């Protein structure tokens, strides 16, 4: 009788475990359809949102904050998905679509990884965001900074001139230099 009960409980557990793993992908959020932006300035609001989320994520990595970076990775993925490329030329649209697709994947990975992997993905993400800014332009001055030590040399963007290294955090906070100013 006792063993029967135990078997029952065990099989119930196994069933629930399978049920929960196989349903995981259902709650992925769907990309929101963005309405056409009315802003025709140098940089539109959607692009600005992407940049702001990127900088918040960078700060979390500077502070070695894995869980905050997870949340912010998710925030960035959402703002990337709602990015609106309709005001750009056809060739820009193609490139923007490519950049957004790649960057979204990295942001999503950041939302579910340990800090080491977050930083690996942040490297490629930084390249994507830099290429994005090259197309959308920026209202504020940005600094492209470079750390020669991380993975054979790695760049990132910052709004401030002083170096705060997102790849090493507290280990080597000031490693790097400004390699370019973007206006």
């Amino acid at each position, binding site marked *: *009788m006792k063993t*029967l*009960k135990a078997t*029952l409980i065990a*099989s*119930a557990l196994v*069933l629930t475990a*399978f*049920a929960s*793993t*196989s349903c*995981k*992908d259902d709650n992925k959020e769907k990309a929101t359809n963005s309405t056409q932006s009315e802003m025709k300035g140098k940089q539109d609001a959607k692009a600005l949102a992407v940049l702001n989320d990127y900088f918040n994520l960078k700060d979390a990595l500077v502070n070695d904050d894995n869980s905050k970076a997870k949340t912010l990775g998710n925030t960035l993925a959402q703002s990337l998905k709602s990015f609106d490329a309709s005001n750009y030329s056809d060739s820009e649209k193609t490139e923007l679509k*490519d*950049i957004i*697709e*790649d960057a979204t*994947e*990295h942001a999503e990975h950041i939302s579910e990884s340990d800090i080491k*992997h977050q930083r*690996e993905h942040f490297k*490629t993400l930084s390249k*994507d965001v830099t290429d994005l800014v090259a197309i959308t332009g920026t209202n504020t001055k940005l600094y492209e900074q470079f750390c020669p030590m991380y993975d054979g040399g790695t760049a990132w963007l910052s709004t401030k001139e002083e170096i705060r290294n997102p790849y090493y955090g507290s280990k080597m906070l000031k490693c790097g230099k400004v390699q370019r100013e973007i206006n």
Partner: protein
Amino acid sequence: MRAVKIIVWILVIVLVGIQFIPTKRNQSDTVPETDFMVANKVPASVMKTVSTSCYDCHSNNTSYPWYNKVQPMAWYLQYHINEGKDELNFNEWGNYSNRRKKSKLRSIISQVEENEMPLGSYTLVHKDAILSNDSKTELIDYMNLLKDELE
């Protein structure tokens, strides 16, 4: 005692019942032109490693184990295959932009280097998919070569 009997019967019915729910099988006879092996000049040994250790979950053609006929195992496999193809589908390689290829190569290299791929739950059953040190180095070297070509 009566209650236990009823529960046992319900469980049996559920377990038998779910066997009749069909799952989509990930199988295809054709190798598209966009396939990783077609798009690149992959050395034979690397080709063998990649097809044995990666293609079951990262292509449109899985060679299924016998227990795929049994639920809930079939769901479990289907979930993994969907996830795997979503991340990287070697059959679609030629459709990826250079930016995406670089990202994928970087991830392949880091996942293999850190022994995160192939998945432990996969190699537990597929002993032949376990990467030897030699095949691992060879695979990483080749992926690095492809990545450098794109830089």
